[in-house]
């Protein structure tokens, strides 16, 4: 047997990978530069939510009787109402801008309340283990077994729709996910050396949890929260579509879609634009969430 020195291979056969396909390049760019997502979110969600009072061209709740069901600007309408008007003559653009406020505030407050509850309970369960853990995890199971909209139905039927009702529903849906995820991570973090060192140094349970463990689950919490803004916006939209959301006349995207539902034959734009706003917003949020997850917590897998 002989081992000849391998022949030098010419450089071109070294197989430089072919440049990725155009669609794939677009995809990679979307993923690696979340600028587009951030831009869409700012334009569609954050800026309108903060500045609707000054920027909205019309009153979102007072319609002009003469201007009912006007089409959008490139479909026979005018720049007066760029996205057309609804059946009460209200400007759809203005209503979408005010609707952003509802989507943004409900998702932020709901995630904050649900996250706070879930993270706290998850921390307690993972840190103390034992019976505290058992009780909290059983509650998690129960909460995951009760579909969200059903709870919303019961609550709405019992006490009527309101901002608080929606926040309760959102928080109820979310807390269990945070609790489960945080608990799992705390279980492993609490075994690490620096936690043991802090304990030996006489730190209190509270201090250990807040100073030593919480910072280590922060990434997970941030990623989870970002990924959930989108689904909370959809949940809120579904509730308001069913009439279980923010009470009228405050405009919400889901409610606007519902308003135009009977009129799709004659005035498709009434339903179309608010729904498009939801889709683009949630799409950008999910893109941003995926990007954040890849950066901060690649192992996290939630559906």
């Amino acid at each position: 047997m002989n081992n000849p020195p391998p022949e030098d291979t010419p450089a071109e056969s070294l197989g430089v990978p072919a440049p990725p396909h155009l669609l794939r390049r677009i995809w990679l760019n979307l993923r690696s530069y979340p600028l587009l997502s951030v831009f869409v979110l700012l334009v569609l969600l954050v800026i309108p939510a903060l500045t609707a009072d000054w920027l909205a061209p019309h009153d979102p709740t007072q319609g002009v009787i003469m201007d009912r069901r006007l089409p959008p600007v490139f479909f026979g309408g005018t720049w007066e109402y760029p996205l057309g008007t609804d059946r009460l003559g209200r400007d759809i653009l203005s209503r979408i801008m005010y609707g952003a406020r509802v989507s943004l505030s409900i998702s932020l407050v709901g995630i904050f309340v649900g996250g706070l509850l879930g993270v706290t309970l998850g921390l307690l369960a993972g840190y103390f283990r034992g019976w505290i853990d058992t009780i909290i995890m059983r509650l998690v199971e129960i909460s995951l077994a009760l579909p969200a909209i059903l709870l919303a139905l019961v609550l709405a039927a019992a006490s009527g729709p309101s901002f608080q009702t929606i926040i309760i529903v959102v928080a109820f849906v979310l807390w269990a996910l945070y609790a489960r995820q945080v608990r799992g991570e705390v279980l492993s973090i609490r075994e690490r050396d620096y936690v043991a060192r802090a304990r030996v140094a006489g730190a209190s349970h509270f201090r250990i949890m807040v100073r030593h463990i919480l910072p280590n689950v922060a990434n997970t919490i941030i990623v989870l929260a970002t990924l959930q803004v989108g689904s909370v916006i959809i949940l809120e939209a579904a509730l308001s579509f069913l009439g279980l959301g923010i009470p009228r006349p405050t405009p919400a995207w889901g409610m606007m879609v519902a308003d135009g539902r009977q009129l799709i034959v004659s005035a498709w734009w009434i339903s179309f634009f608010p729904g498009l706003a939801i889709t683009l917003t949630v799409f950008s949020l999910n893109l941003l969430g995926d990007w954040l997850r890849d950066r901060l917590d690649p192992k996290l897998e939630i559906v």
Partner: protein
Amino acid sequence: MAKIIGETILQVENLQTELHTNIGVQRPVDGVSLSLRQGETLGIVGESGCGKSMTALSILGVVPKPAAQVVGGRVMFNGQDLRTFSEQQMRRIRGGSISMVLQDPQTSLNPVYTIGGQVTEAIALHRDVPRRSLMSHAIDALRQVRVAAPEQRVKDYPHQMSGGMKQRVSGAIAISCDPHVLIADEPTTALDVTIQSQYLRLLREIQEKTGLSIIFITHDFGIIANMCDTVAVMYAGRVVESGPVRAIFDEPRHPYTRALLNSVPTMDRHVKRLYSIPGQPPALWDRPAGCWYRNRCPFAEPRCETQYPPAIAAKNTAGSNHVANCWKLEDSTWITPKS
């Protein structure tokens, strides 16, 4: 019992495999040549990451796609070049004429199918056996690898078996289609020592019975001494020394082979401390000019820095075809001294 060693059955020439990664194109197998005769056991030895397993997978053309690709060389098997075979022809070779046993018995059997199912699948693919008698052939194969009560065990799932038993099942799958060549990729690394020697004995018995040729991949020189007729020492994706097992053990010519031998603790040699080779093998994407071992080599000379050494035949007592890629062999009596 003396083994009968016949004609060359498998000849690998200058095999090259590329791996496309985020940091560029690497060559885990970079011009490997091997030869294996009928009934012979060839040991491939080297540090982890030197391309032993990738060589085996490249021979059978099952490198992880699409990242890896065999890009050059020939794999002559019974006079035909397997590299020119279509995927369909290769499937008949894999598990049929050339089969393979993998390292980790815990993960190499599919957890959701029975033992019997996994053995019969191989038989159904490669042997012209009526469907009804498939199971009895599987039981035969299991009996050959000394699985107790094979009639019952065929209904078991992998998780119901011990690691050693699972490795026997892998062995049964490998030999069930009467292969000419068996490639064993560190089959005993994950097993207990006693189970290990049982398994090695089993392999030798099967070889004596069937005249099977074996390529044994390992990093354990003890197993090499026990099992192999010839040895190829791999370093950084290339074979650096090869020859009859005695020659390699008694008169290693490549400094790397000597270093590997030194790092094996043995009973008859008084080792003051466990020897380990200083330094790291070169990164796959950053090969130095000249000899790839020179950075770790105590005998490096200026010319080692400019040119990769060719394979040079060694004159020795134990026999011919002992070669090593080292400039030191230009003095044909060179034997790497014990350091």
